[in-house]
């Protein structure tokens, strides 16, 4: 029943007063997956960075040139073995969450609310002008504007890539074809790292927009209902 908009009313004697409108935007499976994913992504990134600390380079071992010495305070697991335990545990939660989410979206048809398609193309430029060049705000007609759809669709692709590159790093022999696609184990490790930063880029933008769009937007991913939607 996503897409349903209701008027929230207050009865004053015989009078019915409309105090707000609300849209049911996020069905329960989507909300559960969102928060499970938020937690598992946090653990995957934190433990991944601890794993990276063991060899913070993408070059040769001899001589070793470190790319960046990631501070231990922003890492999970304490040491390489501990971080691998976190990583190899939460990867299952991360993958399961992704599969449940994708399965639900496809099965329910709810994906239409968020999937970026060619129909969203004309709306991209006005939205870019609004966000980045102080252009007028295009009227909102649905839960997500074209740029939001683009972001949420892309990040699903990045999520899939994070799993595939990770699989190539974990199992370069059993999934040699995957590793081969990525240029071998050595490159797969670099791709895995880059995909992580791309996802972190999304998370940064996502959090900025949450702050800018206010409380009702944040509440909607908890209760499903967004008060006073723009459409």
């Amino acid at each position: 029943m996503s897409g349903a908009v209701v008027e929230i009313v207050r009865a004053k004697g015989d009078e019915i007063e409309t105090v707000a409108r609300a849209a049911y935007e996020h069905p329960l499976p989507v909300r559960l997956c969102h928060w499970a994913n938020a937690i598992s992504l946090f653990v995957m990134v934190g433990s991944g960075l601890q794993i990276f600390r063991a060899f913070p380079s993408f070059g040769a071992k001899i001589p070793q040139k470190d790319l960046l010495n990631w501070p231990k305070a922003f890492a999970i697991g304490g040491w390489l073995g501990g971080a691998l335990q976190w990583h190899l545990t939460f990867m299952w939660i991360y993958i399961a969450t992704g599969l449940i989410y994708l399965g639900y979206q496809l099965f329910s048809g709810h994906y239409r609310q968020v999937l970026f398609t060619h129909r969203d193309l004309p709306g991209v430029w006005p939205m870019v002008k609004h966000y980045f060049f102080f252009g007028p705000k295009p009227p909102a007609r649905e839960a997500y504007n074209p740029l939001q759809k683009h972001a949420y669709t892309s990040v699903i692709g990045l999520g899939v890539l994070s799993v595939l590159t990770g699989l190539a790093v974990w199992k370069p022999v059993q999934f040699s074809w995957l590793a081969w696609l990525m240029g071998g184990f050595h490159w797969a490790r670099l791709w895995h790292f880059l995909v992580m930063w791309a996802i972190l880029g999304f998370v940064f933008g996502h959090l900025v927009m949450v702050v800018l769009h206010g409380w009702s937007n944040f509440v909607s991913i908890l209760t499903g209902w967004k008060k006073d939607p723009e459409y």
Partner: protein
Amino acid sequence: MEPENEKPGADELKAGDPKIADSNTVDPKAVEAGTVEPAIVDKEIAEPKVAASEAVASKIVEPKVVVPPPIAQPKIVDTRMNERKFAQVSRRELLKVVPVLALGAFAIPSFQDSLLKKGLGFSDWASARLFRRSHLATTFSDSELTPFEKFPINGYDVEDPGVIFENWTLTVSGAVQKPGDYKLAQIQALPRFRHNTRHVCVEGWDVIGRFGGARLSDFLNMVGADTSARFLTVTCADDYYESLDMATALHPQTLLCYEMYDQPLTRKHGAPLRLNVPTKVGYKQAKYLTDLKVTNVLEKVGYWEDQGYSSFYAL
């Protein structure tokens, strides 16, 4: 929205009035989603209708059918919900998300260790299920080899435990028909295999090296090992110890390695005998082997595994 769908004349209305057509475009979404969570459509939205007075109920229906929506923005209002009801629905929906906090169990120190061990164990179990003895590790051309001097030397303790080669033997025990001490010459008498394979360290670095030696499976055959046993353990001159699952031990690329880059093993690379297992991560490739045992029971898994590394780490 439900009655509209059942109306036989809905199509005519759609064709006639663009504004109603507008509301029709939204309808399928709600209806189809409604099939997924009918409880909410039927109860939580319909209920306030019932709860409200008769007058209200008629007011809800009226604007939909008689009064066309205002001109500017085609506002699509499906129904109304009482303010208190909305707060109640919101609270209930919030509570439904709470189970996610179960993941917080990982933050509790007393649970953390066992949960992570279970997670790692599950990964190892999945790894074992994925492993195919026929699936070979990629081999590389000579031009892709990492130069020998750039092949890292990783020792957990000493780089050279000072093995006296003249006295060296491999002591074989456990589920084998011919236990005893085997000389290097006996191992070298087995067919020699050489391959250029990738050596991947758990730390993340990798090199491509050239390894030569006897197939471990040939050696196990020679000593009459019970290959239905589950494991094979090795101990080393530097007190390092390791274990392999039997499927990996029988893999055609698993070598009792006495050569690197077509030269006898150097002391720092594990002379006189080391494991070369291209399907496993680096810490499985034990150096300075002294003992080999075929067994069904693992008292210890391996030096690093017993400190928390993956037991099966197959690539």
